[in-house]
Structure formats: structure tokens, C-alpha cells
């Protein structure tokens, strides 16, 4: 598998495994397309809250939150090749960190975000240690077990003093700061938007750096990587930590936006949804996280419109059809399409 090299530093297609772009000219062309698409999206993103009702703003905010969580998962699975069917657990830890800090200790909501990130990083790193010994299906099993057990862990009575157990924690929605003329929904939207952008930029930089290349080397051929001097153990645990950090921050944001959390909010279906979002967006393709977030946010609603009694079945069918159509997700599709385009431009 040839390693991609491109002349432009900000082409998202450069950081992922897959179709190699044949020549610098084609690469610039693709980068231009991606960049214009990005700018258009940005413009839509900024304008949206002023043109839609509060409910849609709320949904878009949740979509971005899921996208950030999926971004985290992508770093672990797409870039570093470690499966996780249990990322809902880190989302939950982030959410509870934020909620407990706000509810029990009266901490301002903005401070909860970095705290959630730090705590989740530590939890993720710690989980990454035993995970070092696990691969493929075994890791999937271990993380699957983690996902199923997560609600239970937050119900445990010794912790009830902080977590309020089954009753859950209610949080107040913050108002826009500095008296900005935004209602709380709009403000949270922009906050999430800004954090999402920041997260994406950091992720891309991470992936393009030496650390990123080390992570990818571990994904592609761990034994070779180790024999070349890459400290696999450290990097794999770090990947878990960073991945958990992202998802934890998403969880904290989620808690603030929904204003209520309880153990039932983190049922194993959440972990499953994150994996689905990851695959649909494109494993290893960072911008795909947004598409993945949109998929898991809106497609179940579409399924419900089509049939209330069989909404689960409709959703399942859509999922399976997507896998037939684009097994490598939107990311894979775009790469193939761009690859085909550039090939055509080469033969001219």
C-alpha cells in the first residue's frame, strides 16, 4: 500500500488509507474541490441558526455533538486500527463529569468541557492498557461488554451520592455570554460549532504529524511498526486516551444541551450508533464524522415516519443497503469518485 504524499497540506484525503492520488496536479485539483465544499459547509453552518426554528437548531447541535464523538472513535479505529464497540462509555463519563461538576459543585459549564476531556483522557488511557493485549475480535468483545455494562456502572449505589443513580441529574441551560443577542439554543449551537471545528483541526493536525503516521503504521502492520522502533504500547494507549477525550467532550456538551442525564441515557444502543456513524461516514476519513453524525441523528426519524411499528426494521434495512452501496462509507465513495475524476484528467 503506497503512502500518500500531496503538495497541499490541507487536503483531507491525504491522511487516510485507500486510493493513492497519482500526481501532484490531480492532488491540487482534488484539494480545491474539497476546500470549496468545506467553505460552503462552513457558510451554511454559520447561517443556519438564524434561519431555522429552535427545534432544528437543537437537532443540528446534537448532530454536531455526535459528529465530535464519532471523530474521537475515528481516531482510535480509523487511524489507529483498534476496534471499539464501547465508546458510549466515554461519552457517559464525559456527560457525568460535566453534570456532577455543574450540579454538585456549581462549576461553570465552560470549565466542565476541558475537565471532561482530561478525565476521559485518563479513563481512556487506563482502558487502553489492558486493551494492548487484545486485538480484533477480542477487543471488539471487551468493548462490547463495556458498552452493555455502562448504564449499570452509573447506577451502582456507592456512587449514588454523586450520580443520583436512577433519578438522573437535571442541568440548567446556559444563556449566551456578554449579552449577545442569541437565545440559549443558538448560543449552544455556536459553542458546539466552534468546538467541533477546533476538534477537527486538531485531529487533522494530529493525523498529519509524526504521531499520526506512527498511529497509522501501527494500524497497518503492528509488528513491522514495532520492529522499526515505534513504541506501540505507548501510542496505542495514547490513541485510546485521545479518542476518549474527544468523545468525552462530546458527552459533556450533550449533557448541557439535553439538560438531563441518567444511566438510561447511555444504553448500549449509543455505542452501536457511534460505530454505525463511523462506518457510514468512512473509517479513517475524518470529515466523514459529520455525515455519520447526520446519519444517526436523522435516519431513525425518517424510519419512524415510514413506519412506527417497524421503525427498527426500516432503520436496519437502510443500514444494510448503505453497506452494500458504500461499504467504505461516504469517505470511501468520495475517494473513489475523486480518484476516478483525477484519473480521467490525467488521460486527457
Amino acid at each position, binding site marked *: 500500500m503506497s503512502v500518500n504524499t500531496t503538495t497541499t497540506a490541507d487536503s483531507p484525503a491525504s491522511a487516510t488509507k485507500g486510493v493513492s492520488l497519482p500526481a501532484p496536479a490531480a492532488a491540487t485539483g482534488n484539494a480545491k474541490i474539497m476546500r470549496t465544499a468545506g467553505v460552503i459547509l462552513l457558510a451554511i453552518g454559520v447561517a443556519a441558526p438564524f434561519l431555522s426554528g429552535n427545534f432544528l437548531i437543537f437537532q443540528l447541535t446534537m448532530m454536531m455533538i455526535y459528529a465530535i464523538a464519532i471523530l474521537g472513535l475515528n481516531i482510535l479505529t480509523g487511524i489507529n486500527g483498534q476496534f471499539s464497540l464501547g465508546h458510549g462509555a466515554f461519552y457517559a463519563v464525559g456527560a457525568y463529569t460535566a453534570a456532577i461538576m455543574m450540579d454538585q459543585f456549581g462549576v461553570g459549564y465552560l470549565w466542565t468541557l476541558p475537565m471532561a476531556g482530561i478525565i476521559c483522557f485518563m479513563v481512556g488511557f487506563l482502558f487502553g492498557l489492558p486493551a494492548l493485549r487484545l486485538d480484533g475480535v477480542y477487543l471488539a468483545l471487551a468493548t462490547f461488554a463495556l458498552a452493555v455494562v455502562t448504564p449499570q456502572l452509573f447506577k451502582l449505589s456507592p456512587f449514588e451520592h454523586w450520580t443520583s443513580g436512577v433519578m438522573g441529574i437535571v442541568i440548567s441551560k446556559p444563556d449566551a455570554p456578554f449579552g449577545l443577542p442569541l437565545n440559549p439554543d443558538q448560543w449552544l449551537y455556536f459553542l458546539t460549532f466552534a468546538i467541533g471545528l477546533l476538534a477537527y483541526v486538531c485531529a487533522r493536525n494530529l493525523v498529519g504529524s509524526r504521531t499520526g503516521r506512527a498511529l497509522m503504521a501501527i494500524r497497518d502492520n503492528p509488528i513491522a511498526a514495532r520492529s522499526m522502533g515505534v513504541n506501540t504500547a505507548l501510542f496505542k494507549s495514547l490513541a485510546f486516551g485521545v479518542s476518549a477525550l474527544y468523545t468525552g467532550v462530546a458527552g459533556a456538551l450533550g449533557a448541557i444541551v439535553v439538560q*438531563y442525564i441518567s444511566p438510561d441515557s447511555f444504553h448500549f444502543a449509543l455505542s452501536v450508533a457511534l460505530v454505525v456513524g463511523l462506518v457510514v461516514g468512512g473509517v479513517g476519513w475524518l470529515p466523514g464524522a459529520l455525515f455519520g453524525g447526520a446519519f444517526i441523528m436523522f435516519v431513525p426519524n425518517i424510519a419512524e415516519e415510514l413506519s412506527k411499528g417497524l421503525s427498527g426494521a426500516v432503520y436496519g434495512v437502510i443500514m444494510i443497503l448503505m453497506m452494500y452501496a458504500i461499504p467504505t462509507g461516504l469517505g470511501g465513495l468520495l475517494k473513489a469518485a475523486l480518484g476516478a475524476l483525477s484519473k480521467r484528467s490525467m488521460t486527457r
Partner: protein
Amino acid sequence: MHKRRNMLKYMGAGLVLSAGLALPAISHAADMPGVTDTEIKLGNIAPYSGPASAYSTIAKTISAYFDKVNEEGGINGRKVNFLSYDDGYSPPKAVEQARKLVESDEVLLIFQSLGTPSNSAIEKYMNMKKVPQLLVATGATKFGNPKEAPWTMGWQPNYQSEGIIYGRWITSEMPDAKIGVMYQNDDFGKDVLAGLKAGLGDKADSMIVAEASYEVSEPVVDSQVVKLKASGANVFINIATPKFAAQAIKKAHEIGWDATQIVANVSTSVAAVLTPAGLEASTGVISTGYLKDMQDPQWADDPAKKDWEAFMDKYYPDGNKASNFTVYGYSVAQTMVHILTQAGDDLTRENVLKQAASMKDVTLPLFLPGMSMNTSETDYFPIEQMQLMKFDGERWVNFGEVISGEVGG
């Protein structure tokens, strides 16, 4: 230069595209949202998917009932448009659906939203938006608090009341009892247990010799039943939902545990609980009730039962007649109809809430005889009475009086 111009071009395109997101402004009837001269829009959130899907029968029954009401002319000339959305028993989804109902569909109110987590999740929002959250489908005692959540009201007897009734009965009938309690480890189980201890008063600690909880995620509760029997208890309090209650009744019988058994009110269905557990195993089990069990032969000739059956046959033929969720759904829908009828043409949210909070001795056809609903500005628990009953192997036989299990505040 060239690049920047292109940038601006694309941004402009983006802004134009996003204009497509702008929703057309929906004109309110500013004082009576969800109401027109011909229609009333009601919202509901229920678990059509996920771990609690069994309860979706209630919402389906309610929907069928409104079909009947509409066919018979509606409420004060207005037809009911019943919008029910799935939350999969997930609180974030419940919040999303509540916001959709209130902000996008602009319903008059949300009623019978199901489950403590879902209702807890939307309570703050509903009260902030001043939208009635009525007749919530959970007995959690926290949902009857007019001081802190004036727009939220329950319907079914709350779990603590039930526990209190059991506690008081035991202290008066079996003051030397040794009690073993099995309870579901969530708000429901813990609430009933709290009520039980309150009903036992000072003697709670001495009378309860063993407690065993179980999680909804466990496949069987055999281990808990065995543990309780080994503690020497002669009274077994089975605070469980149908599947687990049935398992426990069956196991207690299998291991020959000779104890007086009390089972929670949510698990009294002859068809859904006692038959799977075994009618012989269930003989002698005590519980409380407030609705008639349609499988009970004593109501075979009751006109109210015949009405219900006719309703099921015509409007909800796929419905499971053996499930008492259908009786529950039927009755709660009737309550809603009563409240709306009382409101007349003044269908503002404030007035509808006021009507809900001023029910005086309102009875329903499928209530056990002697029961009625009462609410006031300080009393947000419509049904507080229950009737003790014992299963004789074939049917539930009432004994004693209709008891009130009032919880303070």
C-alpha cells in the same frame, strides 16, 4: 485576488443554500396553541422500540380510543389529532421528541409520556415552556409536586402509596412477620420499597430480614428468591415487573417456600403474569388494584367490560385483550377526554391544566367499585386509592376496604 473572489462566491452560494433551511413561519393562534375550531392536537411520547417496547401497547390503545371519540363527534365538536412519537426509552430522544411536539407540531399538551427517565428528562423543559405534561405514565412519586413543577401531573397511584398500603396492612394483620423483599433496582422498585418501609414505621428494620435486588438486564431471578427463602422470611414482597414477577412466583413455588406473597400492582395481570407463573403457584398471592382485570370472570357480565370489548374489537382488533395495558390505556384516554370536555371552548394551556387540577370524585367505568379521581391545586395525585385483593387460583377477590395511601406533600 482570484482566490478570494472565488471564496466569496462560494460563501454566497452557501448562504443562499442555507436559506433553504429557513422554516416557513408558522402562524400561531397565540393563546390556544394546538387548537383550532375543528381540531385539538395532543402529543405523546412512548417507547415503540428498545427495552420497554412492551409498554407501547398503552399508546396504541389511546390512539384507538381517540379514533372512537372522533368517530362519535369529537370533544365539544373538535376532533382529536393524537401525535405519538417513539423515544426508545432513551431520555435524550425523549427530549428531542418533546421539543418536536411543542415547537414543531405545536401541540396543546403532552400526556401519558412513558417512563420515569423520559419524564424526568422533559419535566424541566415542559415547565419552562408552560406546556402541560399530564397523566404521565409512571408512578414515581416525584411527579406530583405542584410547587416545583406545576405543569406536570401523574395519573396512576404512585409507587410509594402502594408500598405504604402494604406496610400498613402487614403491621395490622401480621405484626410478627419476617419480611423478605425482592425489588427491581430502579426508581420503581426503590420507590415501592421506600413506601413499604414508611408504612411499617419504626418496625421496618426489625421486620425486614432480607432484601434482594435485581437488574432489568438479568435473565432470571432464581438466585434472589433462593436467598430470600434462606433468610427465614415468611412474608415475600415481590416488587417486580411482569416478567420477573412471574419468574419469582414460579420459583418460590418450586422451592416450596411457604410464605405470604405480595406482588406489585403492575404485575397483577392474570394472562400476562399469573398464567405463565402457574395458576397453582399464584394462588394466595396478594396485591392491590384500581382497575378491573378483563380476564377476571367476575366482570363477565359487566356492561363496562362489554363496552371495552366492543371498543377493542372495532378500533384495536390487533390489540392483546389479555394485556391490562389496554385497560390502562382505555382509562387514561377517558380521563383526558374528561379534562378536555370540562375545558369547553377555553382550551388554553392554563385552563386545561386548571381543569386537570380540579377533578372531584371522577369515576371511570373500568375503575374498581368505590374508586374515584381527585385533584386540587395542592394535590397532584389523581388516583390515590387502591383495593387489596387476593388471587384464589382463578380470579382476584377483593377484600377489605378501598384504602387511601396518601403520601404527604
